[in-house]
Each structure stands twice: as structure tokens, then as C-alpha cells.
């Protein structure tokens, strides 16, 4: 469809307007707001869709306010082979006219005109496409809805060489899917029906197997019954044979047992006869023994009495000896006691004499201690006073030497005063009277001021200042010497030396006294030593003064020897006594024993004699022999009879025979039991077979196999059908998917070629099933359309429409109508969009309504219409 011209009159605020559009390329209709741009787009719909007498709100709204005039719309359009002018007036003086110019002129008015236009459009124009390619204000960023657009589909089908298929193909796919879903779930699993068939087959198989098993069990029972019946037939004669054998054996056994009893009876008789004969023989022997015993006991009694008499004298002698020895021992014990007392007395005396001697020694030691202690006390007194030791003496000696040297130096350095008396003269020198004999000389070194008074004259001599240093040194040396002497408590060196000597003497005396003390005290203190001596003396004072030590020892030794001798004697006597006592006891015992024996022997003699007398009273010795002979003969006869009977049983072994009988009886019994068991078993089997016969196992198996057959057939058919359905559905689906991809390709390619102009070389899009842009890729980044900016989305929406228009243009197509689009685009993008417009609109009609003409100024090929 192409719009060539559009005219409005009395359309809302538009009194009159006529716009002509370029047949190809872009027509930009520009004008300020409310200049009636949107009315142009709206008016065409009004014209095409509504009758001139429509009372619809949209129609009524077109009436200009406050003017009672008719609203007119007239359009010149071409569509397919048709070109026509179509006009309507609404509200007042309504009319509809249609003038068809091509392919052949026609004229219509009123409803007829309206219907004719509808028919032409229906025949030639894809109305959904027309609606899809319009962009009206407010929905500018929406992508065109192309899902219902068959013109596009046709165009794309052509591009895809018809791969997409039509309704028939899609119906086929739907049916294949329905077929597929008979066996499978949408996710490709076996569905309940399909699984149910398999389950039925499994169940049928199980049932058939069970029935087969039951029948096989039955067959086994039948075979068992046959086998047992066969065995029974063999068992019965066998049992009969065993019974006969048993009877035979039992007869034999009874006969043997009777004979055995006879043998036993005879044996018993022989045994008894033998016993009687032996009894008689024993009686004879007993009689002889009794006689012998009587004689023997008499002899023994006599012997015993004799022995008893012989043992008495020895016993008496032993008693006397014992008496004597007893007395001897008693005497010796008394003597020994006395001798021991003597030894104790001697020991006491010896001890006292030893103590007296030690007292003497102690007192001597004590005297020496006393003396040493006095000596030590004296020495200590000396030492306490002595302040001079070796060091002090040496110091004094050094100080004295220094003093002498100082004096000598001073004297040598100073003047020397020499007095020479020419007559006796008394002078006073330094206050001291000095009488000088005439001719005498007195020299005095002047080391200090010297006053010499002679008469009324005082000569004062002064050594002068030159000696003062030496004098000071002298004074110093003198002071040192005095101090050393004072410390030692002596006047001078000689005194110091004497003091030192006395000190040494005292130290030596003290050391000597210490040594004496040590020697005499040893480990005791002086008090202990003294106490010991005092105590010993007191003790000795209480006792008699003893003999001397050696005498005491001699007395003691003598007493001890005596004790020893007595002890030996006593031991000897006691030993003898013990021996004698033992001997006497033995003798007494023997004597008592002999008395007892004699008594017993006498009793035995009496008993033996009584027994013999009694036996002889019962049977005389001569009768015994005759009876014994008779009994012996009888025993021999019985033994012979028993032996004969036993010999007759020789060859028959009753024990073996009995075992045979027992065995045969048990065997027969076992056989009988076995037979009975078999019969029972057979009865049981027959009972079971009879019961099972009622059940109709064969029919059950037949029914199960029928079910199995049917289930198997159903399953195999279903399985085969399912495989076919799956294969068909999946194959169709695979190809449809491939076709869809091929089909979408041209639109995508067109859109991408336009997009590259606007967005750059690295531009790609993905289209969804409804042919909408789903994702855009730019500079390697892929984004969902929803994530793009409003501007980009609007640009894509415009490009999509341009692309569709370009694709459908060859088949006539429809105009792209853009009402104030691209409000979101920046100037740079607008420039590029302009280029895209230029390219896309080469074969299609694009109408742009805008109040911002700058947006489209860059489209070089655009026709501009100003309102």
C-alpha cells in the first residue's frame, strides 16, 4: 500500500489541510505542536474503518468545536493493482465516495464504496503489518508485533525457500506431538499408559511363570506317585521274605534256649555237689587243726610262765643301783652350790682391789691438773699486761733510729757552743745550773735558742732561721718515737725489748700448762675428773679395804676351778642315773609283758581244749572220713553229667543266634515301617493330586498364557508405535527448529545491516519466535533488550520497522508511519539513523511526523512537507 495524498477539512482544529507523500523514500511532515500531524495518521484510520454515519466516540471527537460543519477526509491510495481516491464526510451532509482509477475505472458511493475499499484492502494489504509498522506517540519504544503478520511471513518464507511450512505442516506437527504424548510425557519419559502396558506384561509373565511352576509341581507329584507305587511293589514281597526268615530264626532260637536252660540246671547241680564234698574235706582238716592247736597252746603257756619267773632278779638289781645314784647326785649338787658362792665372793674382792688402784691414779692426775691450772693463770696475767709484741718493738726501734738521725743532722748543720772553763764557774744553761770545772769543756750544738746565764749576763744563742726545717723534722721524729713508746706502754726501746721477752716466756708457760691438762684430763672435764675421784673414794671408804689385786685374782681362780670339777662330777653321776632309770623301766615293762603273755597263753590253752572237746562231741573223728568219700563220688558224677549236656550245645552259638534274630526282627520292622511310610506318602500325594485336580491348573496356565500373549502383543505394538511416534515427532521438531532458524535469518540480516549503520560494525541481534529482538550484541557485549537504554530501544524499534518494511516492500508492503519518534536519540545517533532511513526507504514509503524537524534534517533524500 502507498499513500499518495491525504486531505482533511474541518477535522478538529484543522480547517483544511492537504498533504502529498513521496511514493518511495522518506516524507517528513513537520509542523509545531497541534498543527494536526497526529490527525493525519488518525484520519486515515477513520476513513478506512468507520462508516460515515458512525456514532462512535472516536468519530464524534473529530468534529470541530463550536462549528456545525461536516468533517471531511479524502485519501488517494494505491494497493496491489489498485489506485483509488476515497473520501468521506462525517457528522453533517455525510457521504462516502470511491473512485477507482486503476486497473480499471470504477465508481462507488455509500456503503458500497466502504465495502469495496475493505475488500480491496483485505485482498491486497496485510492490515496487521500496517498496524505493526506504525509508531504512535507514547509507545515509541515498543517493538512491532509481527507474530500475526502474514505478509512478513510470506516474505520470510520466500527468503527461507519455504522451509517453514504452512498450516498443514503445523497441524501435522501437532498431531505427531499428540501421538508422541500417547506414550511419553512432555519431558520424554514413558507415560503412565505406556508403563502400564509394560507392567501388565510383567504381571502376565509372572502369572504365567507361577502357573507353570504350579503345574510343574503337580507333574512332579504325579511322577513321585508313580515312583513310590513302583517302590511299593518291590517292597511288599521283600517284607514277606523277611518275615519268613524271622519266623525260621525264632524257631531255632527257642530250641537252643531250652537246651541251654538244661545245661545250666546240670551245671548248678554239679557245682552244689562239689561244694558239699569240699565242705566235708574242710571239716577233716579243721579237726586236725583243732587238735594241733590244743597241743601248741599248752606248750606256749608253760614257756610263758617260765620266762616271767626269770626276769624278776634283774629288775630288782636295777632298782637298787638307781637308788644309789640318786643319792650321789643330790650330794654333788649341794657341793656345787657352795663352790659357786665362793667364786662370787672372790670376784667381789678382786673388784674392790682394782678400784683402789684406780683411785690412786685419779688423785695423782687431779694434783697435776691443779698445778697446771695455777701455772696457766699466772701466765695469762702476764699476757694480759703485755702490750708489746714483735711489731710494736720493731716500730719503736725504727722511730728511735729516725730520731737519732734527725738529731745528728741538726747538730751537724747548726753552730756548736763550746764552753771552756778557765776557772770553775757556775753557769746556768737554759735555766739549768751547770757547774764547769776549770779547763772543762762543754759542747752543745745550738739547734734552738740557748740561754746561757753567766752571772748577770744572759747570753742567748740562736741557731738562726736556716735550721728551722731540720728542727721541724727532728720534732716530728721525736713525736713519732714518743707515740710508738706510748702505744707500747714503755719508755724506750730497751724497755720494749724486756717486755717482749717476758711475753714470750708467759706464752710458753701457758702452752706447757695446756699440754699437762690435756694429758691428765683426757676426755673428762676437770669437774668430772674430780667428781669421779671423790665418788670412788667414798665407795671404797664404805667397804673393807681389800687385799691387793694379784692375791684377789688367785683366790678367784682357785674357786672357779673347784666349780668346774664339781660340775664334771655331777654330769657324770646324772648320766649314770638316767641310764640306770631307763634300764629299770625297760626291765619292768618286759616283766609286765611276760606276765600278760602267760595269762593269754593259759586262756588260749583253755579255749583250744574246749573247742576240741566240743567238736569231738558233735562228730567222732572216725565218722568224718566216711562222709567225705561219699560226697566226693557224688560230685564227680554230677560234673560228668553237666559236661555231657554242654557238649550237646557245642556248634550252636546262642549269642550269635540271638543277634541274628534281633537283627532279622528289626529289619522286618524297618521294612514294615518303610512300607507304611511309603504308603502314607502315596496317600498324601494322591490326596494332594486329587485336591489339585479340582483346581484346574491347566486352565489356569492356559488363561495366564493367553493373558501373556495379549499383553506381549499389546506391548510390542505399543513399543513399536511409541518408537515410530518418537522418531516422527523428534524428526519433525528438529527440522522445524532448523527451518525457524533459516526463516528468521533474512529479517535478522536486514536488521543487522541497518543496525551496523547506526551502532557500528560489531552489531548483532537475536530474534525470538515472535520475531522480536530478544538480545543485542555490541562490541562483544550481549544484553537483553530490556537492559538497553530507552534511546537504544527506540532506535531498535524504528530499525525493526524499517527492516520489515524493506523486506515486505517487494510485495507491495505498507508505509512505515512514525509519529514523533527518536525523541531519545542524541545528535550523533540521529545522523546515523538518517543514513539508515536513507538506505531502508529506497523501496518503501516512510512517513515521519515531527515537530522537531532537526531530527530528520540529515536524511538527504527526504521530502519535506511543512504544515
Amino acid at each position, binding site marked *: 500500500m502507498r499513500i499518495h495524498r491525504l486531505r482533511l477539512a474541518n477535522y478538529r482544529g484543522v480547517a483544511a489541510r492537504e498533504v502529498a507523500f513521496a511514493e518511495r523514500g522518506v516524507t517528513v511532515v513537520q509542523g509545531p505542536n497541534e498543527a494536526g500531524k497526529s490527525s493525519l495518521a488518525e484520519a486515515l484510520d477513520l476513513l478506512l474503518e468507520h462508516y460515515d454515519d458512525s456514532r462512535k466516540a472516536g468519530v464524534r471527537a473529530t468534529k470541530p468545536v463550536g462549528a456545525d460543519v461536516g468533517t471531511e477526509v479524502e485519501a488517494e491510495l494505491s494497493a496491489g493493482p489498485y489506485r483509488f481516491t476515497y473520501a468521506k464526510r462525517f457528522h453533517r451532509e455525510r457521504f462516502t465516495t470511491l473512485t477507482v482509477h486503476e486497473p480499471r475505472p470504477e465508481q462507488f458511493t455509500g456503503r458500497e464504496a466502504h465495502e469495496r475499499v475493505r475488500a480491496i484492502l483485505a485482498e491486497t494489504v496485510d492490515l496487521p503489518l500496517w498496524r505493526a509498522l506504525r509508531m504512535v506517540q507514547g509507545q515509541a519504544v515498543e517493538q512491532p508485533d509481527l507474530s500475526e503478520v502474514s505478509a512478513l511471513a510470506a516474505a520470510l518464507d520466500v527468503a527461507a525457500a519455504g522451509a517453514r511450512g504452512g498450516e498443514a505442516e503445523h497441524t501435522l506437527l501437532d498431531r505427531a506431538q499428540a501421538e508422541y504424548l500417547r506414550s511419553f510425557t512432555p519431558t520424554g519419559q514413558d507415560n503412565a499408559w505406556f508403563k502400564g502396558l509394560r507392567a501388565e506384561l510383567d504381571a502376565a509373565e509372572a502369572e504365567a511363570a507361577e502357573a507353570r511352576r504350579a503345574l510343574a509341581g503337580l507333574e512332579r507329584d504325579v511322577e513321585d506317585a508313580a515312583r513310590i507305587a513302583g517302590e511299593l511293589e518291590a517292597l511288599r514281597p521283600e517284607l514277606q521274605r523277611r518275615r519268613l526268615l524271622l519266623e525260621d530264626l525264632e524257631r531255632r532260637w527257642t530250641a537252643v534256649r531250652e537246651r541251654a536252660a538244661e545245661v545250666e540246671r546240670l551245671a548248678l547241680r554239679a557245682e552244689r555237689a562239689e561244694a558239699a564234698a569240699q565242705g566235708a574235706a574242710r571239716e577233716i582238716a579243721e579237726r586236725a587243726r583243732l587238735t594241733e592247736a590244743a597241743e601248741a597252746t599248752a606248750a606256749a603257756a608253760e614257756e610263758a610262765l617260765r620266762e616271767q619267773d626269770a626276769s624278776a632278779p634283774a629288775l630288782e638289781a636295777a632298782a637298787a643301783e638307781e637308788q644309789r645314784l640318786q643319792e650321789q647326785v643330790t650330794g654333788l649338787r649341794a657341793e656345787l652350790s657352795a663352790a659357786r658362792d665362793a667364786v662370787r665372793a672372790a670376784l667381789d674382792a678382786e673388784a674392790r682391789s682394782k678400784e683402789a688402784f684406780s683411785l690412786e691414779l685419779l688423785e695423782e692426775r687431779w694434783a697435776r691438773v691443779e698445778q697446771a691450772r695455777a701455772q696457766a693463770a699466772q701466765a695469762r696475767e702476764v699476757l694480759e699486761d703485755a702490750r708489746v709484741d714483735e711489731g710494736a718493738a720493731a716500730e719503736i726501734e725504727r722511730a728511735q733510729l729516725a730520731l737519732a738521725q734527725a738529731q745528728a743532722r741538726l747538730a751537724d748543720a747548726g753552730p756548736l757552743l763550746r764552753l771552756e772553763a778557765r776557772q770553775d764557774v757556775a753557769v746556768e744553761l737554759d735555766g739549768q745550773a751547770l757547774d764547769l770545772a776549770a779547763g772543762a769543756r762543754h759542747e752543745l750544738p745550738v739547734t734552738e735558742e740557748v740561754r746561757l746565764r753567766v752571772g748577770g749576763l744572759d747570753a742567748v744563742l740562736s741557731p738562726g732561721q736556716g735550721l728551722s726545717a731540720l728542727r721541724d723534722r727532728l720534732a716530728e721524729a721525736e713525736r713519732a718515737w714518743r707515740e710508738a713508746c706510748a702505744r707500747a706502754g714503755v719508755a724506750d726501746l730497751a724497755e720494749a725489748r724486756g717486755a717482749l721477752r717476758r711475753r714470750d716466756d708467759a706464752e710458753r708457760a701457758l702452752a706447757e700448762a695446756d699440754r699437762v691438762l690435756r694429758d691428765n684430763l683426757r676426755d673428762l672435764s676437770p669437774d668430772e675428773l674430780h667428781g669421779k675421784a671423790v665418788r670412788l673414794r667414798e665407795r671404797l671408804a664404805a667397804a673393807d679395804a681389800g687385799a691387793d689385786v694379784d692375791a684377789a685374782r688367785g683366790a678367784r681362780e682357785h674357786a672357779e676351778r673347784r666349780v668346774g670339777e664339781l660340775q664334771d662330777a655331777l654330769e657324770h653321776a646324772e648320766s649314770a642315773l638316767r641310764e640306770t632309770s631307763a634300764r629299770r623301766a625297760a626291765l619292768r615293762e618286759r616283766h609286765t609283758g611276760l606276765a600278760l603273755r602267760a595269762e593269754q597263753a593259759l586262756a588260749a590253752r583253755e579255749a583250744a581244749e574246749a573247742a576240741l572237746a566240743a567238736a569231738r562231741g558233735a562228730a567222732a573223728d572216725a565218722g568224718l572220713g566216711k562222709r567225705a568219700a561219699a560226697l566226693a563220688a557224688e560230685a564227680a558224677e554230677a560234673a560228668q553229667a553237666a559236661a555231657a549236656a554242654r557238649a550237646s550245645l557245642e556248634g550252636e552259638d546262642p549269642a550269635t543266634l540271638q543277634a541274628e534274630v534281633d537283627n532279622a526282627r528289626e529289619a522286618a520292622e524297618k521294612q514294615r515301617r518303610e512300607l507304611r511310610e511309603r504308603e502314607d506318602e502315596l496317600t498324601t500325594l494322591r490326596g494332594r493330586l486329587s485336591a489339585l485336580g479340582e483346581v484346574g491348573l491347566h486352565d489356569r496356565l492356559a488363561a495366564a498364557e493367553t493373558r501373556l500373549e495379549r499383553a506381549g502383543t499389546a506391548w510390542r505394538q505399543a513399543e513399536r*508405535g511409541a518408537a515410530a511416534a518418537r522418531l516422527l515427532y523428534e524428526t519433525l521438531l528438529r527440522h522445524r527448529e532448523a527451518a525457524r532458524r533459516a526463516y528468521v535469518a533474512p529479517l535478522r540480516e536486514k536488521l543487522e545491516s541497518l543496525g551496523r549503520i547506526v551502532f557500528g560494525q560489531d552489531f548483532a541481534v537475536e530474534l525470538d519466535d515472535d520475531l522480536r529482538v530478544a538480545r543485542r550484541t555490541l562490541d562483544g557485549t550481549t544484553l537483553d533488550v530490556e537492559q538497553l537504554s530507552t534511546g537504544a530501544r527506540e532506535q531498535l524499534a524504528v530499525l525493526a520497522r524499517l527492516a520489515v518494511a524493506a523486506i515486505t516492500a517487494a510485495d507491495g508492503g505498507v508505509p512505515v508511519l512514525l509519529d514523533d519518534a527518536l525523541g531519545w536519540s542524541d545528535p550523533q545517533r540521529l545522523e546515523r539513523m538518517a543514513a539508515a532511513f536513507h538506505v531502508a526507504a529506497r523501496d518503501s514509503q516512510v512517513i515521519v511526523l515531527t515537530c522537531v524537524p532537526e531530527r530528520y534534517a540529515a536524511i538527504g533524500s527526504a521530502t519535506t512537507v511543512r504544515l
Partner: protein
Amino acid sequence: MVRFLHTGDWQLGMTRAFLTDEAQARFGAARLEAVREIGRVAQREGCAFVLVCGDVFESNHLDRQVLLRALDVMGGLGLPVYLLPGNHDPLDAGSLFTSPEFARARPANVTVLDRAGAWPVAPGVELVTAPWTSKRPLRDLVAAACEDLRADGTVRVVAGHGCVDVLSPDADDPAVIGLAPLERALADGRVHYVALGDRHSLTELGAGGRVRYAGAPEPTDFDEVAPGHVLVVDVDARDCRAEAHPVATWRFAQPEPFALRDADDVSVLATWLAEQPDKERCAVRLRLVGSLGLRDMALLDDVLDRHRELFASLRVWERHSDLALLPEEDDLAELELAGFAADAVGDLRAAAEGGADAAQDALALLYRLHRGAAA
């Protein structure tokens, strides 16, 4: 000359898994009805007795209903009926013939030949019987039964069951019936007719027509030859005649394999099916070979579907069939499919021509679905 009716292998109580419950019920009823028909034939032909040579019952372990009904029908036949235990109903511990039900319900005219040996059935006429006493006899029972016979002027009819050696596929089976000794016995005049059971096909053995299988009176399987008959036998020392009388009402049909290449071949099959009489009493097993295009395959499916309801059973014997679906250009053009569907068909076709069954099935399904769409 004695005249009697020789039959066997009634297999009462047999079921066939490929029959629906309804057909199975009719099949069972028909087999019982065949027994009645045997009675009618015997009466009509003036037979002295009916001799059933084994496998009277399908199993010893049948539902008692089968037994009681069978005995009731036999009781109504109006002449002596001799039953020989066979391999399906041997005289073992579980035997039907010794069950209390049998004893209670046995009609007076029914006799079980329950021991081997001679059974006088008429003056100068004896049955010589070889009943099975177990499922696996270890010797030739018939030979054993005939051992002590002497030609003494008695007319002897041997009643046996089992496979004869000349027909047996298993030479080592100790129970096979030796034909040669029987023929010697026949030649010596010790026996005069050998009535056999076990084989369901009507069969004559040896020279002189004195050794025969009567076959099953109603068919039981597709591989039987001329089942559905009984033999009316006239025999004496000099002569023997046996005449087959049909008694069956059912058929088990297995035609030669159909070679299918195009719609014409399918219509041949359709015609064959349409021409079959008594379809509700007929079980068919088809062997189909060849290859068909999509349309012809759909045609075949239609034909089979239509007839399946008519026959007691109509099956394609898959094991012995080899029918491929090979779509042809025309088929595909007829589909008028475009776009992705056409591509999918191309894929499937390539796979189908490569022999993939699933692809063939998928194409057939597509054809069906699409035709449904077009209709």
C-alpha cells in the same frame, strides 16, 4: 466284519491364546459339538462303538466343568465309547480318568481302556490297547501290547497313541511306535486294524490301509493336514475299509505367503479374505512378504483392520513375514508437504530405505496422521 468309528485327539479343554474370549468360548463349544456330531455319524453309519485313541482331554488338570460336560455329551451318544489315555491325559496318579468326579459322572456306555491288553468288545472282536500310564513311556507301548498275540481267528483292533517311527522327527524317542512290527502282525493275521491317535492330521500308513490316524475332529493348529474328520472303519480278516467323514465346523487357514508389491497385490489378498466362508469360525494366519509404498501400506492396514473383526482370528505371522514399507516419490508427492515437514520426510525416507523399521513405522504414522489432517 465289524464296523466302528475311529477318532482321537479331541483335546477337550484346549484354549488358543490368539483367540479372543468370545471366540475362545465358541471354539470350546464347537469342540464339544463335534463330539455330538461324532455320535450322529456313528449312529447314522451303524457303528458298533466309538474308539477314541488318546488325548480325549487336553490335560489331566482341567477344570472339572470341562470333564463333566464332556461326559454328559458322551453319555448321550447312544453307543459304547472307548477312551484310551494318551500323552495329554495319561493314566498316572493325577489322571482325570481315576478321579472321583469321573467315577461319579461316568455314563454306562463310556469305558476307559485303563490297562494294556485285550478287551473283548463283541463276539470274536477284541480291542488290543496300549494306554499311556505316564507322560514319558520308556518303550513302544503298542508293540508291548501286541507281544503275546496269536492268530486265532479273533478280529483284533489295536488302539494306540503316539508317533510312528516313520513320521517321528526324534529317532531316539523310546516311545515311538514301530510300524514294521505292526505290519508283520497285520500280515500274520494277529491283528487286523491299528487305530492310532496323537497326530492331528488324517493319515494313512503302510499298505492295505489298516494303519491310520483319524486326526483331530476339530482343527487345533494351522499346520494340520485335513483335520476335522473321523474314520468309519469296517474290518475283518479278509478286508478293511476306512471312510473319512467330516465333522468339523472350524477352520484354521494358513494360505501360501502373499507377495505384496502394489495395490493390486493388496486387492488379491483382500479378495482372498473376502471369499473365505464361515469367517467367524475361521482362524487365519497370514504370511506377507514384499514391500509397499505408503499409500498401499495404508490400504493393507485398512483391509486387515476391516477383516479382523470378521474372522475368529486374523493375524500376520511376523516370524514368517517380511513386508517393508518403502515410500515412493508418488507417495511423497501425494503428501504435498512443504517446508520442514518435507525435510523430515526426506530424512525418514532415507532411513526407511536403509531398512530402519522405526523409520518405516514413523513414515506410516506420518502418512496416517497427515491423511487424517487432510480428511
